């Protein structure tokens, strides 16, 4: 029971991270109908920017809460530039091309990002000293002590906070309206005088900055990153997006939490070596039997 509770806490934390990345997939898919293959690597870049900022701020005497906010903002801004650039280079020139073309160029972009970070930052793993320490302990008298760390609380709270802001942004602002219009019909939206290019750019920027927050959480939670983390995290987050119903933002969050839980419970109870297999098989099973996900719209084949 205690063990179960601990896995639940860990799973929800991990799920928040996946959910934040999944939002980027789902938004981009919603607006241009394509998978952003480079999104996982954007998450990785975000993690690196956060790592570097943490190291720099460690030299100063700024208090922890302010450091956290600063790192958050810095990684969001810098990583958003990456998202913007990926869209401009790999997607925009190919918007009217045949379907596989942008997939290939995004794949190329993903290879570039991974190896560029490897070249610039080195291939060895990077470790970060714990930034937030301590936590609450429960069931102290039992054999297995359940820990809910402050860091986990921080991660979940930030995720909820960002989700709330973000939902407001999509449902209440002109940008959100433009985005939803672009999803329905891009040509018509352009005819209504909305700058479609800018709307698509904004989608990539928002998705990337959320991924960078996920990256920051990741580096704080695990304390270890390398240039390759984007690949696996990307696939898992994509699974989350599909599971929740691709195109649906609450779905992405829900899917993220589910994938996080599946992964932790699998490693906790079944086999840690095959924990990635759990994520991959979930992906395969979901796509084959359940392609619309929980909150997605059914996709009727138009004849």
């Amino acid at each position, binding site marked *: 029971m205690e063990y179960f509770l601990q896995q639940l806490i860990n799973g929800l934390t991990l799920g928040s991270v996946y959910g934040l990345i999944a939002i980027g997939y789902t938004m981009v898919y919603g607006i241009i109908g394509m998978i952003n293959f480079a999104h996982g690597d954007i998450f990785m870049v975000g993690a690196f920017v956060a790592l570097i900022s943490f190291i720099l701020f460690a030299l100063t005497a700024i208090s922890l809460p302010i450091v956290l906010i600063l790192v958050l903002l810095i990684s969001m801004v810098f990583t958003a530039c990456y998202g913007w650039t990926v869209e401009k280079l790999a997607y925009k020139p190919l918007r009217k091309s045949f379907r596989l073309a942008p997939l290939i160029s995004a794949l190329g972009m993903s290879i570039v990002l991974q*190896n560029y970070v490897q070249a610039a930052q080195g291939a060895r793993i*990077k470790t970060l000293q714990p930034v937030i320490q301590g936590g609450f302990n429960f069931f102290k008298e039992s054999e297995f002590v359940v820990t809910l760390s402050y860091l986990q609380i921080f991660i979940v709270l930030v995720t909820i906070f960002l989700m709330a802001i973000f939902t407001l942004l999509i449902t209440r602002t002109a940008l959100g309206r433009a985005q939803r219009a672009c999803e329905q019909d891009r040509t018509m939206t352009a005819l209504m005088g909305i700058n479609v290019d800018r709307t698509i750019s904004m989608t990539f920027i928002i998705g990337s900055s959320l991924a960078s927050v996920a990256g920051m959480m990741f580096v704080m939670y695990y304390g270890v990153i390398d240039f390759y983390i984007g690949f696996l995290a990307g696939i898992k987050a994509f699974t989350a997006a599909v599971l929740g119903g691709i195109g649906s933002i609450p779905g992405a969050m829900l899917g993220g939490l589910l994938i996080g839980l599946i992964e932790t419970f699998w490693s906790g109870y079944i086999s840690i070596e095959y924990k990635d297999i759990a994520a991959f098989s979930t992906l395969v099973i979901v796509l084959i039997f359940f392609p619309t996900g929980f909150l997605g719209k059914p996709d009727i084949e138009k004849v």
Partner: protein
Amino acid sequence: MDKNFLQSSLKDSLFTGLIALALFGPIVGLRTVAVNEALVVQPKWLVVALIVAFCAIGRFFINIYSFKKEQRRGEPSSLGKAISNFLDTKGSQIALGAIIFSVIFPFMPFADRYWMDIAIMMMTYIMLGWGLNIVIGLAGLLDLGYVAFYAVGAYSYALFAIHFGWSFWICLPLAGLFAGMFGILLGFPVLRLRGDYLAIVTLAFGEMIRILLLNWYTLTKGPDGLTGIPRPSFFGLPFKRYPDEGVETFHTFFGLEYSPMQRIIFLYYLILVLALITNFFTIKIRRLPVGRAWEALREDEIACKSLGVNPRNTKLTAFAVGAMFGGFAGSFFATRQAFISPESFTFIESAIIVAIVVLGGMGSQTGVVLSTIFLIGLIEVFRDFESYRMVAFGGAMVLIMIFRPKGILAKRKPTITMVKEK
């Protein structure tokens, strides 16, 4: 060039510089280095300054160039067209020339060990490209897990050869069949998925196979890999300097001086023959009903259904045939290396093969050859800049897609004609 234009392009380049600063500032400018087990930051501002200046100035010149181009618009970009026209008209002669060249290649004066190794590697990629061309180019199924079949071929070859001691010519077809069956097994559930979903699922399958190979220690020896895979022999004659007692070797049988190059040359011809078989098979099957159905499915699946073409079976055959050739190539890889480990079968291999097919021009056999020479050549040229070669590779993928989204050779020849061929 008026003043307004200059002003706006200056502004634009400044903006580009700013973006470049944001992109490269933290990642390149602040390199994290471990000192005494703690990370410190090493600033590299000069490099960043150079990159930013390069981006800004480059952007400025691109602006001016494209402004000039705007003035003399109408000239189609000629190089690609010229190449494809040339290849269209002289296609068969060039193909013949290329085959002759590859046959006499080992006897060229410059063909030393280094060149032979590169040639063998390129041939392997060409074969894989031709195999995958059936799946992606003809049937239009974006398979990002092709390396899985390569791995299945290599491992099944190795296991057959090590445990049963069967010869190359028995293990090779078995490994190919095994990989093909694997293709059917994997393809069966996933082939009704839409394009990009199929891509992701095949990618996941590819990774699952790799994880399985890594962890199934009793069968695959995990990360240690399989060693001692028998080297191929020339119809029973081994390539060895000091053979076991009473065993005739290749050099003694033909009365030659022993040279390690003999085995390399044999391997080269082996992969050349395998690749050519793949090529001729593909050319032939494309003209058969099943090949035409592959292409029709790529064009319009719904129309195919309305004509009574079974989409699932047709796609499955493409998947299985592609997987089989992947398996053949895997067998060759295993026997050439004599050692295989899961490290050789990562996602990046799949990406390289996909890039070869798509950049060559979907469905074009000659295109595969050209893009292999270009891409693998690029990786080779950058060999000394270890970490930058994949950056260059990925960059080339993006650039070719932007400038020639249909690949180097985009033109398709009909598989059957009413009028006799011109």
